[in-house]
């Protein structure tokens, strides 16, 4: 069956079961996202992929495409809202790009450049989030967590381990690991897990390979996140 919908005025074909975001990607149209990943079912928490359909805001990662839909995405209004969502993510955590090992490979940072975010706008929360360096191969820096739950999902659904989970709620929500001690070293996490290389920001970092590629020569230093996503499918 499938059909066609209008994406920012241009026709985009879709197959049955495809979401707006999937169909748009397949047609070479980029929609910003953080918690969505091509290998996982939609999660719908970051809300960066919001678009307007018939005047209503929806999450394009989760809403199935329908024939004749009119979707607005790359508009000043929607991009303004996306920028504000990014600002929210920046102020609720502790993000210091210049000293972060993930700089240049970080999707949060890359999207901020993509959407011309030039200030944090809101007051910073400066939360107290201790790091966990207990594991021999991996460092966890919770300061940068954006709660996309990709590590939670990868560990649970791919690795079959359930190493990560979220606890508490609201602004106090935070990541925990599967050990009474709260230490990653006391879980069965391995650096070869799918969860080890899924983090879109800089929470899960491999030890002993930091800065192997200099900042300035990394993925999103060389090309914008929309270009990388469309050309390499990442």
């Amino acid at each position: 069956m499938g059909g066609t919908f209008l994406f920012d005025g241009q026709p985009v074909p879709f197959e049955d079961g495809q979401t707006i975001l999937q169909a748009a990607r397949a047609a070479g149209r980029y929609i910003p996202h953080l918690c969505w990943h091509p290998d996982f079912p939609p999660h719908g928490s970051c809300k960066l992929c919001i678009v307007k359909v018939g005047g209503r805001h929806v999450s394009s990662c989760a809403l199935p495409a329908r024939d004749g839909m009119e979707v607005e995405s790359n508009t000043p209004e929607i991009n303004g809202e996306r920028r504000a969502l990014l600002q929210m993510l920046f102020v609720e955590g502790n993000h210091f790009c210049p000293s972060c090992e993930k700089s240049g490979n970080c999707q949060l940072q890359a999207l901020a450049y993509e959407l011309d975010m030039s200030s944090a706008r809101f007051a910073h929360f400066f939360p107290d989030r201790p790091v966990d360096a207990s594991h021999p191969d991996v460092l966890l820096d919770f300061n940068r967590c954006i709660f996309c739950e990709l590590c939670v999902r990868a560990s649970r659904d791919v690795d079959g381990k359930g190493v990560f989970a979220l606890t508490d709620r609201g602004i106090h929500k935070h990541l925990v690991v599967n050990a009474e001690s709260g230490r990653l070293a006391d879980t069965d996490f391995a650096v070869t897990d799918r969860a080890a290389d899924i983090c879109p920001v800089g929470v899960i970092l491999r030890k002993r390979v930091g800065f192997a590629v200099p900042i300035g020569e990394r993925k999103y230093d060389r090309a914008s996140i929309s270009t990388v996503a469309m050309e390499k499918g990442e």
Partner: protein
Amino acid sequence: MHDAERVAAQAVERHRREPSQLLQVLVETQDAIGYLPAAALTRIAGLLELPRSRVEGVAGFYSFLHTEPVGRFRILFSDNIIDRMLGSRALMERLCRRLGVSPGQVSPGGEASVDITSCTGMGDQGPAILVNGVAVTRLDEARVERIAALVHAGTPLAAWPAEFFRVDDNIRRRGALLGADFVPGSALQAAMKRGRNGWLEEMRVSGLRGRGGAGFTTAVKWGACRDAPGADKVVVCNADEGEPGTFKDRVLLASQADRVIEGMTLAAWATGARQGLLYLRGEYRYLLKHLRAVLAVRRAAGLLGARILGESGFDFDIDIHLGAGAYVCGEETALLESLEGKRGTPRIRPPFPVTHGYLGRPTVVNNVETLAKTTLIALQGGAAFAATGTPQSTGTKLLSISGDCAYSGVYEYPFGVTIEHVLEDCGAHDPQVVQVGGASGVTIASHEFHRRIAFEDVPTAGAFMVFDGRRDPFEMARNFVHFFAHESCGFCTPCRVGTALLKGYMDKLASGKGAKMDLADIEWLDRLLKNASHCGLGSSAPNPVIDTLLKFRPAYERRLVSLDFKPAFDLDAALETARRMTGRDDPAAHLDRREEV
């Protein structure tokens, strides 16, 4: 094995090692130990074969579960604006002084902890508290003194005066539902006589819409569930009445439980469900014994269980699940997650619960009042039911009225009643503002009192809070903003961060440091919350701010110190650490006193 682990293991066994019972297991373990020690969580995870991280995630989600020790007497003050207007804050300070404890802390000897909690549903007889989860009403200074003495003496809750725990129904106006006697089983007999299809048709004719707020047509929901593939259908009663200012479901569960349970059974007759679940908010756990007794009587009378009223193939029974302090669980998909023993995070919709609900099975989720109303339809017919109210809002509506009026309580009106009519009935002498529908509802100013309670004009899940000329609409809105920030599940970015930011802006204004730019930021956050939130909690969280900014803007503007910008950062306060470290407190060590030097 340690004691905590043994207790936890017993709770798991009572629930047949069902992972979906995790929340109930945690509640019962905490009941026995007082909190949830780390070892107990590990043991529960092991026995349920769940990752420990998931158990920890659930334990951390619900306000009434504690992973750190709390006082032997855990006292929570209901913090709705109505409780505050009745003096709850001063009473809490008094109790804290008597017990030698600060809010949010445990007293040195571990005897007590005192804190605030979201509205406990006692707006008609507040200020109200919860002591170890049990509701205490009508607090005043004398009662606070007696509670302090009982806590000091270590008197077990069971030996406290029964009067403390008295909860009145306060039914002030009776209509079709509250005014009629009800014989258990009579509605069921009438519906069964019509056959399953005939009964659903009668529901359709009634035009009954959900009383929980959204107003979806009940017969459509039931029909969709009946027609959904899957044999194991489920009927869920949403008794998670968490909307601040609402308490009519409390009264229905206390005085009309048979109608509510029979409504669930009527839903089962229409949909073919065999399993029923009643999700009771933790604040109403004092009703648990009563509700279980009603279920037992009905089972004995053949109104629940196998072959209901002798009809072969009509098997249906009900379990009660207890919530643990999470407003978001009133959202039907969050409620389903909670019933499955998970964090109460709203699901992505579609699919909707009618096709993929509890454990993926077709599920009807109805509000307490909606279910009670179905008994009227069964007994009198859909046409008779639709004869009252308005064409789009048939039947009657229960209102929970509290605040600045002479007679707080529950009032039943046909839909279409004007707000001024209600205000007159409840003895409101100088009403200036009415908050209809709770924190997420609509703020009504006096020039709008001619408007009507109906889905097509002013919709409401039941709350009706009255504010007179002494009250400040800004403080009302600020109270609700704090509520939403506390209750946000934190799943989506706009609600998790937006409600916390909004709280910061409202507090900045309240502390006299507001500027015009803050109002612009507030309006920008309102828009983001409305547009981008994942569920109704986030999208309705800015409602009281949007409404009061529109209708009572001077209440905001008189708090502004600067017309353009004033930083939230307080430089002088930031010097406090340095002052402490250097032991200085002279004028030269204070920015704001430097001129005097």
